[in-house]
């Protein structure tokens, strides 16, 4: 018997997505124990269950075993299948939570993925679909994932707590990825953004835009922030508003920042002006951190570098986020790959904080699901 490779075992529900995604890509089973074992309500939450269901949808032949209390999860991955799918995401987490993992998996399906995700499009916890659309998609393009069937469309906006948003994500399949040498972020040439508001006064979006511009104009004149006021069915079930900003550089780096209003009935009301200011400042923070990839997409870029051919890939990042650090460890245990990590001391001229140069040799991954004729 081709012995089923030894299952990797973890404790706790943190980084569940990483583990399941990497397990699926590497083909190694994973076992997660003690999921919220000591809490009042032990076991997997709604949104995690929904995520597992999503993984089950996009794969074929995976085996998922969850014990009765939901504190132990065993996942034996199947092959990525794809196709035209629909998924109702849990409103506890935004669609970004699910989409981040789908971005990792989508290029390696058997059939091109076209999935409709329903739920919360923007919230305060996860990266919103706007930011992912503006930052993650161009990133994937650098790896050769491109073409007509590559899009992320927001058809409806839904804010927490009730959601009601809808997003269509489509991605073509690739057999191999290109290695990248992405070490020069270039200089920021323009800033774009979207100020959205649903089920509130359309004026709010304008107020956000004005306040955000007031800060950003000091740095660069080329700013355009779209106001996106959704009405009727496309406005979801809960009121809310927010802003997402993206800075684009001359070399095709996209740095994103975002803020959303407090969900209805939770916390104090947020002034749109304040939100705009804070979001602009967040963008400046992101620019200060810098790198060729913004902080939310660090793990994505590292994964795609790992899954490249047996060639050297390089990328310059800002400070590594805790999530990324954990991701690097997971990459090592799933793919036996280590990154060469070098810090680049900040130069004398003011260009923000320190950068980290990540280098690795791809593992020579090839899409095992794709059919040849």
């Amino acid at each position, binding site marked *: 018997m081709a012995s089923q490779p030894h299952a990797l075992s973890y404790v706790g529900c943190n980084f569940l997505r990483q583990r399941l995604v990497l397990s699926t890509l590497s*083909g190694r089973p994973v076992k997660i124990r003690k999921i919220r074992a000591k809490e009042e309500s032990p076991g997997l939450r709604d949104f995690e269950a929904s995520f597992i269901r999503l993984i089950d949808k996009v794969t074929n032949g995976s085996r998922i075993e969850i014990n009765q209390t939901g504190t132990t999860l065993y996942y034996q991955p199947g092959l990525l299948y794809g196709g035209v799918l629909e998924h109702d995401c849990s409103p506890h987490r935004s669609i970004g939570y699910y989409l981040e993992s789908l971005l990792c998996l989508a290029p390696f399906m058997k059939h091109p993925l076209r999935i409709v995700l329903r739920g919360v499009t923007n919230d305060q916890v996860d990266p919103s679909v706007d930011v992912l659309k503006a930052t993650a998609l161009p990133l994937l393009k650098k790896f050769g994932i491109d073409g007509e069937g590559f899009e992320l469309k927001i058809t409806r906006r839904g804010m927490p707590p009730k959601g009601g948003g809808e997003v269509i994500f489509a991605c073509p399949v690739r057999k191999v990825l290109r290695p990248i040498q992405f070490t020069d972020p270039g200089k920021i040439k323009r800033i774009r953004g979207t100020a959205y508001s649903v089920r509130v006064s359309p004026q709010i979006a304008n107020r956000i835009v004005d306040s955000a511009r007031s800060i950003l104009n000091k740095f660069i004149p080329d700013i355009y922030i779209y106001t996106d006021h959704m009405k009727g069915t496309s406005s979801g079930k809960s009121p809310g508003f927010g802003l997402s900003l993206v800075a684009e550089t001359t070399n095709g780096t996209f740095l994103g920042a975002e803020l959303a209003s407090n969900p209805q009935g939770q916390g104090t009301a947020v002034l749109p002006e304040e939100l705009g200011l804070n979001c602009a400042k967040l963008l400046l923070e992101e620019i200060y951190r810098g790198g060729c990839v913004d902080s939310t997409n660090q793990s994505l870029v590292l994964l795609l570098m790992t899954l490249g051919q047996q060639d050297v890939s390089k990328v310059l990042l800002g400070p590594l986020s805790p999530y990324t650090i954990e991701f690097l460890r997971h990459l090592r245990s799933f793919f036996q790959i280590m990154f060469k990590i070098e810090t680049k001391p900040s130069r004398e001229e003011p260009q923000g904080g320190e950068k980290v140069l990540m280098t690795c040799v791809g593992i020579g991954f090839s899409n095992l699901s794709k059919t040849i004729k």
Partner: protein
Amino acid sequence: MEEKDRKKHHKKHSGPKADKKRKRHLNDLGLGDDEDARKRNPKAFAVQSAVRMARTFHRTQDLKTKKHHIPVVDRSPLEPPPVVVVVVGPPKVGKSTLIKCLIRNFTRQKLIEIRGPVTIVSGKRRRLTIIECGCDINTMIDLAKVADLVLMLIDASFGFEMETFEFLNICQVHGFPKIMGVLTHLDTFKNNKQLKKTKKRLKHRFWTEVYPGAKLFYLSGMVHGEYQKQEIHNLGRFISVMKFRPLTWQTSHPYVLADRMEDLTNPEDVRVNPKCDRKVSLYGYLRGAYLKNKSQIHMPGVGDFAVSDVSFLPDPCELPEQQKKRSLNERDKLIYAPLSGVGGVVYDKDAVYIDLGGSHEEVRPNHELVQSLISTHSTIDVKMASSKVSLFMDSKPLGSEDVENQEFMMPKEEKQIDLKTGRVRRKAVFEEENDDGASDEEEGQDEEMSEDEMDGSEGGDGDNDVEGENDKEVPGQELGLRSAKRLKREETTEETAVELPAFADSDDDLEMRSGEEGETDLDESKEEAEDQGDEESDEKESSDSDSESSMVPTTDSGNCTAEEASESEAEGSSEEEEGSNDDSEVEESNKKGIQSAPEKNVDGVEWAVSKAVEDGDGDDDDDVENLLKEEEEYGEDNDFSVDTAGALKWKEDLTQKAAEAFLRQQQSAPNLRKLVYGTGKNPMLAEDADEEDDADEELGGLFHVSRPDKESKQKANALDCSKFPVETPQDWDLDEVMNSIQDCFVTGKWEADKDAAKLLEEDEELYGDFEDLETGVVHKGKPAAEGDEDKEGKEPKAGEEEEEKKKRMDKKRKLKEMFDAEYDEGDATYFDDLKGEMQKQAQLNRAEFEDQDDESRVQYEGFRPGMYVRIEIENIPCEFVLNFDPHYPIILGGLGNSEGNVGYVQLRLKKHRWYKKILKTRDPIIFSLGWRRFQTIPMYYIEDHNGRHRLLKYSPQHMHCGATFWGPITPQGTGFLAIQSVSGTTPDFRIAATGVVLDLDKSITVVKKLKLTGFPFKIYKNTSFIKGMFNSPLEVAKFEGAAIRTVSGIRGQIKKALRKPEGAFRATFEDKLLMSDIVFMRTWYPVSIPAFYNPVTSLLKPVGEKDTWTGMKTTGQLRHERGIRLKQNKDSLYKPIVREKKHFNKLHIPKALQKALPFKNKPKNHEKKAKPTKDQWRPAVIREPHEKKISALLTALGTVHSYKIKKAKLNHRQHLKDYLKRKHKEEEEKFKRQKEAKKKLFRIMGQKEKKKQKSSLKGSGEREK
């Protein structure tokens, strides 16, 4: 005789001599010394036809593009592994002789018996691994997968044999390696002509199989049982200059052709259970791709395993140093074949062994050293662990060796001095290495030691206390231990230097030094021993390594960061806090002073040792002082945390301020790496730590005495979010803060080489004056600073000149770049661009890790091809060791991601046209796919036009078909072959089918046809009630709307179930049915494939029976063996078809209709005629003989008469013909005559007429006259 043998003179056709001759000849013709023909005879090369020119151009372009391959990144290693040369051929063809001759040719050594692969150095840049391939099809398949070059031996006196063709076909499937044919037994031909003919015949057949023009080598005869020297030499030359094409499978998978095997199983386990699973280490050159530690491998003939450890060893058969000479030194002509017992020096992970040959074993030398050496050797061969224990027994420390060692190490040591800290304790490196060797043996003590350490750690900082305790407890084995080390060290004298770094550890450094002093201070040695224990435990967890500069503090710092990181991330990966290494800026991190209490145990021990050292020797006092100072620093740093928070409180802060902490830590690079990956070299340890919490505490318990469980758990269940929130936002209203990112924008300052303004300036300088035509403004270049020069005088002139020069050079460079850009990129095609890109990538790949030492390179890249590696594998079946036969190749094939999994594999398959039978669905068959050979049960199918996969009972005779089986997932596009059985030999061709993998899936789509039949029991117009097709209304409900059909072709549809007869339904048809009609429905039933996957474990069979593996038998075989005849279904027997004559009734036309019909169509009433009446009926006439005679005469007369008449008629006809002929002739003559006459007449008439005219013309005149 001699005259006969003399060579005939051959004219030279090439070379300088021939050229000269040709030139002379041309000169003689008067054409010589002229330029080329094109110039001499321009008309011959002129354009004759534009169309033809276009055509030839197209053709050349076509040919050119045909040659293009998709460019791939060149990933071949700089120092390639030896080329695998597989010598293959049927038995008794001369394989072993050829190998022996080749080895002799390259190395001047004679091998008597060849077992396993033999590696030799064949040239300055090339090594060869030669291996013989027997006729077992298992071996042939395995070796075809790893071969770079195949020497295919063919017995010319016999011709091609099946094995040859089988091997060729195997090669074709698994990527085609270079194949060179070698014809042997040519001396059997007495007749020269026949020999020539045979050669030609064989050559052409060989060409059709390989490629036209493939090299076929002739070995003409034997001299003293060997091939002719010159021919072997030529063959060797061919081999050593041959170029190889990269094969897809080989370049994408790491593999090792093992040339050495050792059993590392604990002998006690074997004693208890002789059939226990074994732990084995295998050695060989790594080929193909990068090998990662802990990855999955497959051993063909054994099974799948996970690599438990990999380490690289110094190359046993090194390429010579770069040298100018063309040929190799005798010294460099190495040979390495441990399985054949050749090579002399055998490298191990931690020692080097010298083979003394069999002769030494009988006479035991007195010398203790040698004696122990021999014992070492034997132990390694048999059982490692036990041998080492035995080692200690009868050896004693040798002072002289110490001295030697010290001398040897000195240079090394000097290199390692760290200027900043002045810690020169690198001497220890050697000792350490030895310790390491010894360490394994000391397993028994291990636990004790660790306990000691525990005590130490609990005791806090009290170094001395610990020391004291240890002193008491240390068992008195150090002496033995030491001597063993010494022994080994002596053996390794040369190699140690290379190997050392692998085991350098800070603790050892100290200890080593003390050892070196060779001072017999008892206390010291005790401490040492204790330290060793310490190290052992370390090393078990993390096989560390490292470069010269790793020192005590390094370890410590590594620990703290690791600890911190792991805690903060709540990953239970901090098992091996100890095993660290690492170069460079460790001090920084130390100063940061993040110290952890748990580390103390280690520190404690170290300090104790260092103090002891201080006592012992005077030389190193300074160092020790330094050390101590540092320790004090540590102490101070620690004090804070220890005092305030007790054992573990210091960690609380960290978790909360994780983001801050790591931002701070990024200040130094190695810290970041440690932060991420911890200090363990062993990548899997982290995960092991995760794997079992309980085991965790047991195993590494001593190093993390107590982890703050609560915190870690909390972290483990924290929010899973990829966002990186800003913890301490900066005040963006402040100018300084704003300025800090000012240059990130296009509006900010640019780097010198990119700033537009600057570039513009430069351009200006470059081009000098120009006039803007649009505006009419004239720009002037700078006048070359003439005025300045004058003013400033000569002093600055020198500097300026230099500047000028630089500027000029810059200018030149720029111009050249522009020129290049203009002219080179102009005609660059897409292909060129792609190639350039690949080349760039290849360069980058090579350059990226070039400057790093192997230890760290291995971590990032994995083990790169060309390295000599030692691979440890656990849980190997004992038969592998017990039935080990070096004649069979052992291959370790690396598996890619999820290639170790199983699933359904879809193939495109074609029965081999030389295989005599067709293949039956569900008959088990053996596949060779990827690295694997396995038996499985395939299902054959064919794809219908609508994409449906329809099951076939048998594979088609001459067509491709699909096949699906349950088996290991192998990348698409991989070739495979199938054979019915690997055991025994048959005269027939054994390869049953070949093909390629198309798709991998976890479910299958193969269906077979199922026809459901039913019968009408009630028929209305177009509606009928059908019964007998289903058994219940529920079944009917499932098929509502399905299309049905009668045998006669009337189509219909199922409507609804009926209540009364169970399973009957109403259906509508396009026409009315008959009660005799049969209604049927075509359905497709998915078939299931048995999940049967049985690897061929031929290597586990006993020696001599390795080619007798049999797996599952086919039903046909079983039936045949047991004599069970198949019971035929009576209905499926063929019977003769009897067709009864069809009888048709008469056409009956009703009377009314008859009346209405027109007469023409009316049935005519032919009344039956009555019987002829008597008068109508006439009797027969019977003649009398006389009458008969008369009538006979009359007939005879009549005949004669009729003959006469006939003759007369004929005559008459002849006459008539003649007459007509004659008449015709006459007529013609007459006509002729008349024509003549007419002619005459007309002439006369014409003349008359002329005359008349003349006369008339004249006449008028005359008349007028």
